[in-house]
């Protein structure tokens, strides 16, 4: 028997759309000593509660009504880092859907219970999960403070201490290697598991490690195999689609995503992706259907975005349904309470829609509104939205604004190949392929040269010179993560070599925070975060 766990001080959140079940759960938790129970009937209510206070245990039903499910809820919590790694998340599910729950490879709940279950079963599951979390606590602490290298090293020691969780530690090691971009090592870790048993999560990890090493054909084969053997592993379809796209097979990518969407229509990021791929493939009907699901289901979600309306409106306009598209933009403005971001996005799309319908005057007016928003409140809009703005500018003859926005966009994202392709497609659609290509290449080249110059300086031993250049560039191009992170890298190397410097270290930290905020999964970030920790430790500073 495992050592007894004290439930009295645990804060438990119960999420279930059924009032009877919520109350029954509260009563049954009471029988083993839980006194701090909190109830939520909807995912949004639960998210609000979690943002305000933290919970030790979250018990969520899979069915939440209104087009939401417990898996989406969990994904939102994890993606937005609303719960700690130590928080216990247990999914409660009917037998009918339990395959879906156990098939969530990447963002699996800590455990699940299938209805009907007994109070004793619930107690035992919670107790074991809490004990297991305690064994992982040291690694979780390291991960949460960004010390991923240390976390990876700690796994081996803890594994020896807790042989019972060996498989779980190996799984975590694989995840960490992938996050640290140590793909060859990840490949090794997963291969080791696969030698004993072909478990789907290990095959997935193996496939990802191959994919990230650009071994697309091999990865494609693995993902095909996972999909064939475990058709419920929906994440495998996403990666299969990535692999298909990487080898240039857009139709197969769309088919893979469509298959997954059919099984789980509520997973909005995947619907979004299906819409994107279908639109690129010229299949406007499929794109419209996918985007429309995102807009409809997203209404209930805390994490909806104006972009979803823009995508749908764009496709409607491409199909010639201008009035429908315009009224959707009106809805977008209302849905987001006329926020600057939503208003700007809607204005951009309205300009494009009016132009397409032959109404030049209204197109001009809408574009003027969008540019006014940009100037007045500078709302953060996505890169895709910026390209829509560029499109609107050129269509309504605002050359200068278009040139400056697109150059700025490319200078800040010169490494984002997908975005550059998208930008090229935008110019192609405008019938200005060569003009666009030129503009894009020049903007990118400017940054590449700057970066190369800095790197050359560093290689020639002029680390200080390199730092000056990169810090200037980082100030000018705050959104270019390559520049910002290279600046951080150079600073850290400099400090490591030449000794502690409070100001430089503060700048390095600021750059890394920028990266952590903007793109937590940037391939260089984990490495640099780890390096920052090492340097800080070396000079005896604690963050």
């Amino acid at each position, binding site marked *: *028997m495992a050592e007894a766990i004290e439930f009295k001080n645990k804060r438990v959140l119960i999420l279930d759309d059924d009032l*009877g*079940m919520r109350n*029954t*759960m509260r*009563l*049954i938790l*009471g*029988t083993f000593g839980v006194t701090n129970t909190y109830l939520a009937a909807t995912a949004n209510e639960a998210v609000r509660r979690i943002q305000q206070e933290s919970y030790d245990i979250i018990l969520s039903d899979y069915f939440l009504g209104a087009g939401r499910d417990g898996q989406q809820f969990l994904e939102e919590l994890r993606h937005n880092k609303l719960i700690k790694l130590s928080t216990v998340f247990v999914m409660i599910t*009917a*037998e*009918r859907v*339990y*395959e879906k729950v*156990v*098939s969530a490879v990447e963002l699996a709940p800590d455990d699940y219970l*299938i*209805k*009907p*279950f*007994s*109070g*004793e*079963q*619930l107690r*035992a599951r919670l107790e*074991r999960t809490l004990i297991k979390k305690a064994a992982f606590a040291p690694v979780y602490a390291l991960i949460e403070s960004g010390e991923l290298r240390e976390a990876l090293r700690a796994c081996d020691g803890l594994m020896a201490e807790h*042989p*019972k969780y*060996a*498989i*779980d530690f190996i799984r975590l090691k694989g995840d960490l290697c992938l996050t640290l971009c140590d793909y060859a090592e990840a490949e090794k870790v997963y291969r080791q598991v696969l030698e004993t*048993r072909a*478990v789907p999560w290990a095959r997935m990890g193996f496939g990802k490690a191959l994919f990230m090493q650009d071994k697309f054909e091999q990865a494609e084969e693995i993902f095909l195999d996972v999909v064939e053997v*475990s058709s*419920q592993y929906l994440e495998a379809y996403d990666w299969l689609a990535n692999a298909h796209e990487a080898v240039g097979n857009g139709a197969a990518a769309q088919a893979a995503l469509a298959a997954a969407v059919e099984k789980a229509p509520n997973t909005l990021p995947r619907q979004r992706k299906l819409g994107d791929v279908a639109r690129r493939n010229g299949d406007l009907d499929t794109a419209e259907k996918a985007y429309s699901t995102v807009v409809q289901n997203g209404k209930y979600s805390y994490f909806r975005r104006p972009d979803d309306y823009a995508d749908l409106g764009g496709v409607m306009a491409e199909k010639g349904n201008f009035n429908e598209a315009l009224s959707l933009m009106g809805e977008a403005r209302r849905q987001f309470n006329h926020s600057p971001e939503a208003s700007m996005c809607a204005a951009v799309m309205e300009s494009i829609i009016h132009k397409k319908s032959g109404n030049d005057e209204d197109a001009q007016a809408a574009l003027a509104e969008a540019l006014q928003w940009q100037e007045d409140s500078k709302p953060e809009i996505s890169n895709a939205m910026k390209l829509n703005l560029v499109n609107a500018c050129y269509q309504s003859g605002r050359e200068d604004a278009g040139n400056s926005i697109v150059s700025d966009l490319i200078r800040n994202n010169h490494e984002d190949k997908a975005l550059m392709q998208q930008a090229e497609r935008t110019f192609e659609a405008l019938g200005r392929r060569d003009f666009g290509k030129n503009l894009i290449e020049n903007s990118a080249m400017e940054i590449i040269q700057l970066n190369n110059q800095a790197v050359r300086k560093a290689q020639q031993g002029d680390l200080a010179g390199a730092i000056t250049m990169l810090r200037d560039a980082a100030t000018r191009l705050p959104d270019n993560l390559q520049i910002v992170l290279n600046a951080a890298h150079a600073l850290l190397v400099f400090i490591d070599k030449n000794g502690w410097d409070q100001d430089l270290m503060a700048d390095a930290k600021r750059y890394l925070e920028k990266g952590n905020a903007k793109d937590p999964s940037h391939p260089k970030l984990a490495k640099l975060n780890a390096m920052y920790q090492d340097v800080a430790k070396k000079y005896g500073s604690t963050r």
Partner: protein
Amino acid sequence: MTDQPPSVELAALLAGNIHEVKNLLGQLFLALDEASVTAQTECPKLAQRLTAMRLTGRRVHDRLLHILTVYKAESGFFAANLDAYDPAETIEDLVQEARSLAGMHLSIAGQSLSPASWYFDRYLVESALTNALHNSLRYAATRISLSARAEDGYLVLSVEDDGPGFPAQMLEGGVLPLHNGEKGSTGLGLFFSRTAAAAHKNRDKAGFVKIENGGTLGGAVFSLWLP
């Protein structure tokens, strides 16, 4: 209105309703469990009656699960979701379940001599074992034993009792009577366990169920063999 071919639709409709009934049972189980915990301190006699009611509830659920299994197996939905679990925990859970449902006259023992982890579908395995356990709870005289061990490259999970054992007809393995009125056995329980066991595959091996009489306690022995 046009005539519809009823068979497939009907099966799906029934399956859907069984799921709903299972959800309701879920609430009932928890409510009964809570009532039984409360009764233990306030009214021990009632607690005993609640224990019997809880076992009946479990058996209702077992039956529903068996019917669903036939539906799933026929429509090709039946698959095992393997992951690594600790067999000792499975035995622990079963012992707890047995103790919470056993009358005063029964003593329950559990033993695990298996490796620290094994790949299996926890839900299927627990469902098959609890079904066997619910039977033992009805037929055992004084003792039930639950155990896990490794043998011949298989994980063997067993439920044994000191009751009268399986009827000869069942042991012979031939055609099971679809319904033998008196005991209410439909043979579906064994069908479920066999389907669940067989869904566990490892390379060229598949899981299976062994039923026999004798064992360490002299009564029924139900074993699940998982590769």
